[in-house]
């Protein structure tokens, strides 16, 4: 459904009301390599949506294109944010994306070891601070009040993840499972519309993975948000996702419910290889 206007600037996007994110013809090249090639999919409001693909399929690249860490060469990333209007994120400032109501985590977490656990969570509320720098420096009553309110919010987030007792512990030296939880708490602190999780289960053991699945569901319920995740742990993906999109070498393979994806011949080929014809 391409229109006459090739740049897409003037186009009004035909999107149904319940769509939160719509990727249209997304492409990005690194030198000669097409990391993502004409990828389109859409995510409905309230879904837990999985993006899967073999190693090097371009999943994280897609994430980086959505959050504008990479600038896609072609295509549109349409997002229905806090404003309620569908807008194209392509070309927007990286640090502006969170204000639209879209937050992400990172594969390698990106926590600050020098700060305490609660300070790491509070970073997630950066955009919600309204009091200016001078008031903060002078510790005016409104700055103190705001800081206290944010701290309480961060405490509730830590409590939600079950690690409230670690609030004042330094981040450095915390075990992997705790770090994952802290990053998760940081992510939903600003009450986003869409949370993007980059391999949330990587490096977790079975019990921790189960806890994670539960907390992802809880977050979705409690915040009434939508979740998009990239994951290698197929059990987790099949278990919690409503719908899944599979990609390989940057190209779209299939999109559907977990059962549909599992039985899709193209997906099977991508993961397991072509069946050898023996006689």
């Amino acid at each position, binding site marked *: 459904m391409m229109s006459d206007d090739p740049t897409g600037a003037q186009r009004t996007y035909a999107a149904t009301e319940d769509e939160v994110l719509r990727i249209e013809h997304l492409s990005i090249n690194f030198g000669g390599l097409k990391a993502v090639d004409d990828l389109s999919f859409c995510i409905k409001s309230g879904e837990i949506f999985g993006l899967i693909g073999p190693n090097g399929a371009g999943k994280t690249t897609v994430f980086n294109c959505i*959050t504008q*860490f990479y600038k896609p060469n072609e295509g549109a990333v349409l997002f229905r944010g806090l404003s309620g209007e569908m807008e194209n994120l392509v070309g927007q*400032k*990286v*640090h*502006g*994306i*969170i*204000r639209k109501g879209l*937050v*992400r985590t*990172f594969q390698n977490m*990106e*926590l*600050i*070891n*020098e*700060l305490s656990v609660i*300070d790491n969570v*509070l*970073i*997630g509320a*950066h*955009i919600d*601070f309204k*009091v200016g*720098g001078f008031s*903060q*420096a*002078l*510790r005016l009553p409104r*700055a103190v009040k705001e*800081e206290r309110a*944010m701290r309480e919010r961060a405490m509730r987030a830590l409590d939600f993840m079950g690690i409230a007792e670690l609030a004042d512990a330094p981040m450095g030296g915390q075990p992997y499972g705790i770090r994952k939880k802290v990053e998760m708490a*940081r992510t939903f602190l*600003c009450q986003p519309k869409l949370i993007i999780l980059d391999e949330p289960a990587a490096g977790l053991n079975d019990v921790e993975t189960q806890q994670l699945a539960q907390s992802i569901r809880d977050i979705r319920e409690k915040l009434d948000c939508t979740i998009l995740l990239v994951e290698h742990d197929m059990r987790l993906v099949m278990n919690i996702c409503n719908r899944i999109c599979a990609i390989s070498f940057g190209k779209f393979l299939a999109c559907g419910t977990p059962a549909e994806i599992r039985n899709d011949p193209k997906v099977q080929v991508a993961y397991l290889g072509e069946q050898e014809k023996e006689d």
Partner: protein
Amino acid sequence: MIDLNQKQTYILLVVVLVLVMMLTYNIVHGQMGRAMHVMRGSQVAAQAMGVNILKYRLIAFALSTGYASLAGALYVHFIKFVYPSTWTLMISLTILAIIVIGGLRSIYGTFLGALVVYAMPDLVLKRIPVLGDINGLPYVFSGVLIILVILFYPKGVVNVSAI
């Protein structure tokens, strides 16, 4: 105009120092300071959380030059005399040494570092026989100290007990 003698000016300096330390403490422990910590630790995380890197780098730059100009103005009040060759590259390096020796990202560390780098040579080293007469001994002292601190106490003198 109030005319302060040197002793009174010194008291003024101390008062301003304490005030600036308090303001800095507030900034560091507020939203702005956190944003700068994150920016230092992980630029991508900072951006993802909505920290405008350019804005906060400029704030950091403006703040630090603000401190430096305040210090310079007060210095002139204290010495009551100024000439361009006071402000050499050596001073910049000494200030850097103060920060490294005292402890990066620490308010008290900078204070302690200044004490070590400026006061130690005058108060202690000069009184050591033979060694105290060597020309440029303070520089040797802070040079050796930087190496020792970086090797054994990367968090600075202020955090020696924490290791």
